[in-house]
């Protein structure tokens, strides 16, 4: 039960962060990706702020043998850089640019711009289902 509450709070912080930072504004995201045009640098602060926190906190967290409420850390098992990783990242980045939505902001837009979310979210789920069929 503790872990469910933690997950809920973590989700709340994440959702609030995405809206506060305007990551949920796809036009702003596309402006951020328009590096060679009318570049909007503000989302550097979002990634920078988030990574600054995870870089520092991870050092302390991983000094523990186990998480506070769980038996172990569930880290990614893969460490090799393979073609699937690169192909996946190319596809993801391309899709991110096409709409300005990555998964979290795409979901939250169900409450902000539902006329786009009703098209994007089903495609996101179908895409994940297709990707799953080709996952090792």
């Amino acid at each position, binding site marked *: 039960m503790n872990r469910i509450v933690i997950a809920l709070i973590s989700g709340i*912080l994440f*959702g609030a962060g995405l809206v506060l930072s*305007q990551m949920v504004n796809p036009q702003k995201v596309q402006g951020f990706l328009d590096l060679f045009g009318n570049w909007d640098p503000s989302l550097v602060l979002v990634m920078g702020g988030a990574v600054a926190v995870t870089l520092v906190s991870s050092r302390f967290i991983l000094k523990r043998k186990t998480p506070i409420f769980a038996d172990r850390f569930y880290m990614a098992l893969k460490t090799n850089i393979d073609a699937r990783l690169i192909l996946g990242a190319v596809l993801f980045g391309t899709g991110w640019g096409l709409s300005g939505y990555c998964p979290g902001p795409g979901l939250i837009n169900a409450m902000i711009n539902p006329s786009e979310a009703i098209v994007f979210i089903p495609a996101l789920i179908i895409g*994940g289902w297709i990707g799953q069929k080709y996952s090792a």
Partner: protein
Amino acid sequence: MLESLPIEALYGGILIGLSAALLLAFNGRIAGISGILYNLLFNNLNNYDRGWRLAFLIGLFVGGYMLLPTDFALREGYSNILLILSGLAVGIGTRIGNGCTSGHGVCGIGLLAGRSIVATIVFMAAGIATVTIMRLSGLIG
């Protein structure tokens, strides 16, 4: 340029980082939205593994809702074809590449995971290339 650097972007980023730190420190889990979503939808999970993922996603909507309404102008009349292609590419790509902006970009880089650093550089480059091509071809303003 400075007026387009709102401090809220930094605060929002810090909240996202805290979210990831909390989930890792207490539950030992990575706050990767694509992984959480697809494991919940497509994999057989026990009650706890389903429960925490569902709680996280419910929280995502609750946290977002708490800060609505947003003050930016909504995009109107965007191409449904682009939205569909985007959703499919993001879905396929994050599934076979094992992560998105959150899992690779925020959590993985924080853990100095080589795969995540490479994935983030590649998806940023692909996003920049895509938007550049779209602007040059007149698909976006």
